[in-house]
């Protein structure tokens, strides 16, 4: 359990100091009850503004967290710098398990590759990754492109003439576009917008010919837009008619992954407890149904498997980052 000896000293020290501070100030919690954790509300910090996908999925977890623990999960926002403001402050927060923060891929890997954003990928102690929204190539319902093949053929015919909207530079959308460009050997014009909402508005208003979004975006706008392909391993149950990129011959998997991290130095058994709680939420049938309905794909990466999961992603993004000239 306590695998490394090195960890023990700081762990004990923090734990003692925490129990002192907690007993001194609130008088509710004693040192022994790791099993009872949490005994008060847990602050869940989203490093983005309210209303986005990170917020919506956190709000869904919120209800079931209370069912399991009898404590509230309080969602707070710490927006700025595309998440960097929050992540650069995570490790300064109280490491007692009562402060957790949402983390996102590819953000936490790509950002530190460029100029220093105030945090390093390995500084973030992720304890659970619970879902991802698969990349999707979306067009208007009345678009001339009926299939991915038609889209790619058009892009080949006039390189750079097809415009695609997406959220942000060096974001999941930007990467998806770059990946497809590489796999299909095409050239397009990617136009970054501030947030998914603005990118969708540009598509629906025919300002651009296609949009890089997610299954969630298509799910929200299914009356006006359709997907040409999704970057998940299997077809999404909400969209049984939309092929995956893989089926069409392009090895494209990915999207925006979301999970949670704790400040460095949070006691190991509390991190595991948190991982268990969020794993339990992920198994709740009602929660699963709601998430699927919104277009998310659930994944289960508990604390024990986090290192391997992150290493894989790191390798994958590094490959693309090299092509994108992010790491200067």
């Amino acid at each position, binding site marked *: 359990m306590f695998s490394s000896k090195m960890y023990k000293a700081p762990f004990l020290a923090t734990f003692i100091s925490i129990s002192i501070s907690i007993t001194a100030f609130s008088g509710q919690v004693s040192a022994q009850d790791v099993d009872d954790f949490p005994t008060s509300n847990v602050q869940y910090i989203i490093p983005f503004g309210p209303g986005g996908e990170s917020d919506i999925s956190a709000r869904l977890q919120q209800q079931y967290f209370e069912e399991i623990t009898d404590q509230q999960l309080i969602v707070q*926002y710490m927006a700025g710098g595309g998440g960097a403001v929050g992540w650069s402050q995570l490790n300064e927060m109280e490491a007692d398990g009562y402060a957790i923060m949402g983390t996102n891929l590819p953000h936490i890997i790509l950002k530190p590759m460029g100029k220093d954003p105030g945090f390093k990928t390995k500084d973030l102690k992720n304890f659970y990754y619970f879902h991802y929204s698969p990349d999707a190539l979306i067009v208007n319902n009345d678009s001339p492109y009926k299939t991915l093949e038609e889209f790619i053929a058009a892009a080949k015919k006039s390189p750079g003439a097809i415009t695609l909207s997406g959220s942000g530079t060096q974001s999941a959308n930007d990467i998806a576009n770059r990946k497809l460009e590489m796999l299909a050997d095409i050239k397009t014009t990617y136009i970054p917008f501030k947030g998914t909402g603005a990118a969708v508005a540009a598509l629906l208003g025919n300002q651009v010919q296609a949009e890089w979004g997610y299954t969630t975006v298509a799910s929200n706008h299914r009356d006006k837009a359709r997907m040409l392909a999704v970057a998940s391993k299997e077809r999404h149950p909400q969209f049984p008619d939309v092929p995956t990129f893989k089926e069409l011959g392009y090895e494209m998997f990915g999207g925006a992954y979301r999970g949670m991290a704790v400040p460095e130095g949070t006691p190991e058994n509390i991190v595991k407890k948190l991982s268990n709680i969020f794993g339990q939420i992920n198994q709740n049938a009602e929660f699963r149904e709601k998430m699927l309905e919104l277009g998310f794909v659930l994944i289960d990466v508990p604390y024990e498997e986090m290192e391997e999961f992150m290493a894989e992603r790191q390798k994958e993004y590094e490959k693309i980052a090299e092509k994108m000239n992010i790491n200067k």
Partner: protein
Amino acid sequence: MEIFYFMLAAFSPFNLFLAVLGVAAGIFIGALPGLSATMAVAVLVPVTFGMPTEAALIMLGAIYTGAIYGGSYAAILVNTPGTPSAIATTFDGYPMARRGDGDLAITLSTLSSVVGGLVGVLALLTLAPLLAQIALKFGPVEYFWLAIFGLTLISALSQGSTLKGFIGAGIGLLLSTVGVAVIGADIRYTFGSQFLLGGVEIISALIGLYCIPVLIDLVATPSAHLQPPNEGRGIRFRESLGLIWRSKFNSLRSAVIGTIIAILPGAGGSIASLVSYSEARRTSSRKEYFGQGEPDGVIATESANNATVGGGFIPTFVLGIPGTPPDAVILGALLVQGFRTGPEMFTTHANVTYTFIGGLFIATLVMLPLGLLIGRYAFKSIVAIPKALLVPSIAFMTVIGTYAIRNNPFDVVVMVVLGVIGWVLARYDIKPSPIVLGLILGPIAEQGFVQGYLMGNASGSVLMVFFGRPISLAIIILVVISALFPLWRMRSSRRAKPSQKREVQHEH
């Protein structure tokens, strides 16, 4: 008929109770600088999970409406916009309060907010699907020109010192580039500090630039903060009604402008109230009184910003694209509750949608008695509180409010620094409004420009993209008119000056 029935459902005692509660809470939150409508709505979202959807929406809508209206209190009484939508309300609201007409300004703001709110909700009820198309017609280039138009308004608004207006706007534009760029992801002007990565937060800048100079002046000068009102005037309701009636066109025009601008997801309440303010001034026969406590100024901005509430819901419900930041939060709450926006909102979920619209109507109407009541006490207490108590309380609020926006202590530092800079600049006649507007409009202009440029490169002609689209051309014409306006005014005032002087001498 069915629609009418659904709307009536909003009038249940429980829903009415929620509307009153929501509006009252919203007014308080909006009045405190830093506590914004977005935050108010976000904090309440979890509370609404346990409620029926209609009730939840009514509560959220009521809070939102109340907060936008409440923003005028701080603007009028402390010269600090409680929300960015209330920036232009400071122009005439605060001078009115200073000379003892704070009661009149607040009552006027209440009445205009109700008028504006009703117009916005009416548009949402009757024209939503049609108006939503406007949101889609606006592409990056249109936003670019709209932002340029906003910047030219600064020159028209900064009386007597166009140049200083532009200097202020320039400072604001520079401040807006700090942090991680949306396009290109470059990190700019952070001087290696991770704290500046998030850029200068607009509301912290608002609080710093407007509120801190007021606090410094309060401490530095012996005179009272606001002139006390004359005794026995009450809330001056009749007088206000008369003024609103006289300015019914102004009020309606501003509400329509507010509604339309709110439909554009990239614009927002600050631009809406700014455009209607300058329109009100342009068409007024009392131009020269604007900025010195002209009631029409307050009427214009407050009609416009409350119209953005209903207007912003139009793209939110019809397209699933939030019109304003609070709409984004409400949209999220809808998704969590299992609702999908789009045409379904007006067919399958018509009961929820129309009950919500009914709820917004109620909330807007409730604002009248509630606003008059709360406003009266707000004004009286700000006048009555001794300076020694007023200054520290406001100072405390500015710190808490700034911190609360992003839970970021560094925003407080930025707020105070900007406040001191703002105070110094005000000595040289560089006012906070151009700076804040530069800060708000800068990113819109920048992103619109780069996106338009990329689109132009893809299509082969950058010029056609920027100058070949009908809506763009219309806005460009507005830009030209608005840019030439100060020149024209300078010439006409030069011509008018001799006669004016004579009149002044006459009076002496």
